[in-house]
Each structure stands twice: as structure tokens, then as C-alpha cells.
């Protein structure tokens, strides 16, 4: 049993597939470069309806993060990756909660805050 386990350890330590391959990195680099250039073009162009630009930038950024996760960090749906994917899902949940939660709460406080003349009137 121990022998078989050490054989498995060595097998997966020398398993080049687990670290991706040259083709995967090249494909990932190509996609990332295309998405980066698209982001910079979108930010500087007047060819797109102005209010749509932030949405398009967000879509491009999320797509590029996905490309990095899949092609560079090699996150996949394989059986060895179940825990990694679950941890990633929890990480995204916490990040979303922190960022959007803070933004909503601060915008709400800002909207409900009395203006300075009103505050001074209350203190009188």
C-alpha cells in the first residue's frame, strides 16, 4: 500500500499535464493579450455609447480573469480540483460581499446623510 502510494506521488509529481503545457500557456497568453488590448481600446474610444463602457470593461476584465484561472492557474473541473473550485467559489462570494456590500452601505449612508446646514439647524 505504502509502495503504491509513493509510486502515485512520484507519478503525479512528474506529471507534466498537471502544470499545463506550452500550447495552453501560448493560447492563454493570446487570449489575455487580445482582452487587454480590447479593454484599453474600449476605454479610449468614442465609437461606443458612453454609459455602456463601464459594463463592457467589467465584462472584459471578468473574461480575462477567467482566462488566467483556466490557462495559467489550471483551475478545472477535474476530480483532483474539487476542493480548489469550492474554495474559489467561497472566495468569490466573500469578495462580492465585501466589495458590493461596502459600496451599497456607503451609498445608502451618503444618500441619507443630512447636509451641513440641516445639521447645524438640528443642533440649534
Amino acid at each position, binding site marked *: 500500500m505504502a509502495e503504491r502510494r509513493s509510486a502515485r506521488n512520484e507519478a503525479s509529481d512528474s506529471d507534466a499535464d498537471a502544470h499545463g503545457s506550452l500550447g495552453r500557456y501560448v493560447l492563454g497568453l493570446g487570449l489575455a493579450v487580445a482582452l487587454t488590448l480590447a479593454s484599453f481600446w474600449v476605454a479610449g474610444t468614442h465609437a461606443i455609447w458612453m454609459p455602456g463602457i463601464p459594463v463592457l470593461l467589467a465584462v472584459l476584465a471578468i473574461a480575462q480573469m477567467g482566462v*488566467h484561472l483556466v490557462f495559467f492557474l489550471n483551475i478545472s473541473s477535474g476530480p483532483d480540483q474539487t476542493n480548489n473550485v469550492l474554495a474559489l467559489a467561497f472566495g468569490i462570494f466573500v469578495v462580492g460581499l465585501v466589495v458590493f456590500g461596502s459600496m451599497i452601505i456607503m451609498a445608502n449612508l451618503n444618500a441619507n446623510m443630512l447636509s451641513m446646514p440641516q445639521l447645524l439647524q438640528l443642533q440649534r
Partner: protein
Amino acid sequence: MNAANPTASGDLAREEIPLSKRGPASTRIVVGFGFWLFLLSDIVIFATLFAAYAVLSGQTAGGPAGIELFDRSHVLIETSCLLASSFTCGLCLLASERRNRAATYLWAAVTFLLGASFIALELTEFVRLTNAGDGPTRSAFLSAFFSLVGTHGLHVTLGLGWLLVMMAQVATLGFLPMVKRRLYCFALFWHALDIVWIGVFTIVYLGAR
């Protein structure tokens, strides 16, 4: 089982034995998972800084707004450096898998140079802003900007130090499984920093209004 070919028997075992009866995962998978948890908690730190930036980005206290301060072509060069270094870092990992010493050193050197150029460009921008009187003390917006971008730059700097340590280990210890696992963790760290940078250049530099 075919004892003469451990890789083939390993693959066979992986397919036939159900997940619950396979025993502990290999060290590389356990180490990768542990380091992945660290990276996610690091990304949560960045999320708090992003939240602070999103809340404070309009609070310029009468000072300059982002759109007047940032130079997009400068940021594009920074982004190219970091993206290219992420790619060469992957090539360095592949070279270490093949136990090719020369290629490992070459790609590690290229990764180091690209990372160092990124840091140099970022410092140039920080010095330019501070000299013009737009340092972190100017407004809440600039405090949030310097905290977020500075924390990322600090991570990249520490990563450069880690890369030097890894090359010293390859030189002295050779390609031990332990050293290869550490190189793998370094590559994960470097790629994760690139993911954070995507958020930085999209929200801070391109999203500046």
C-alpha cells in the same frame, strides 16, 4: 497491476478506485490546495482595498481626479510587462518539470527582469505624483489609490525576492520534489498577482472618470 510502469498503474488506479477509497491525495495536490487557500485570502485583502477605493474614488477634496493624473500608455506598458512575466513564469515552471537547468534560469531571469521593470514603472509614477503634490496625503481618493496600487506593488516586490530564493534553491538543491513544489507555488502566486492587476487597471486606470 503492472509494477514495471508506475505511471500507467497510477492512472488505472485513479480510474477504477472510487474517490472515497483512494487514500490521501498526492503531496503536490495537498500543497497546491493549501497555497490556493492562501492566495484566496490574499485576494480578500485586495477586495477590502478595492472596496475602499470604490467608495473613496470620488472624494478628491478639491484636488485632481483620476482622469487628470493617469497616463494610459504608461499603464499599458506596465500591464504588458506583468502579463509577459506571467507567461515566462509558466515557461520557467515547464522547464523545471523537464529538469532543464539552463531553460529554468533563462525564463526565471526574463520573469525577474519583466517584474522589476513593472516595479520601476510603478515607482516612476508614484514619484511623479508625489513630486507634483498629489501624494497619498492630498485626498481620500489618492490615499485609497496609493494603498491599493502600493499593496500590489509590494506583493510583486516580495515575489521578486521569492524568485531569487527559488533560483538559489535550484542551484544548490537541484530539482528535488520539494523544490519543484515551491516553484509551483511561486508560479501560482505570480499568476494570482496578475489577476489582481487586471482588477487594478480596469477599475483604477481605465475606469477613472
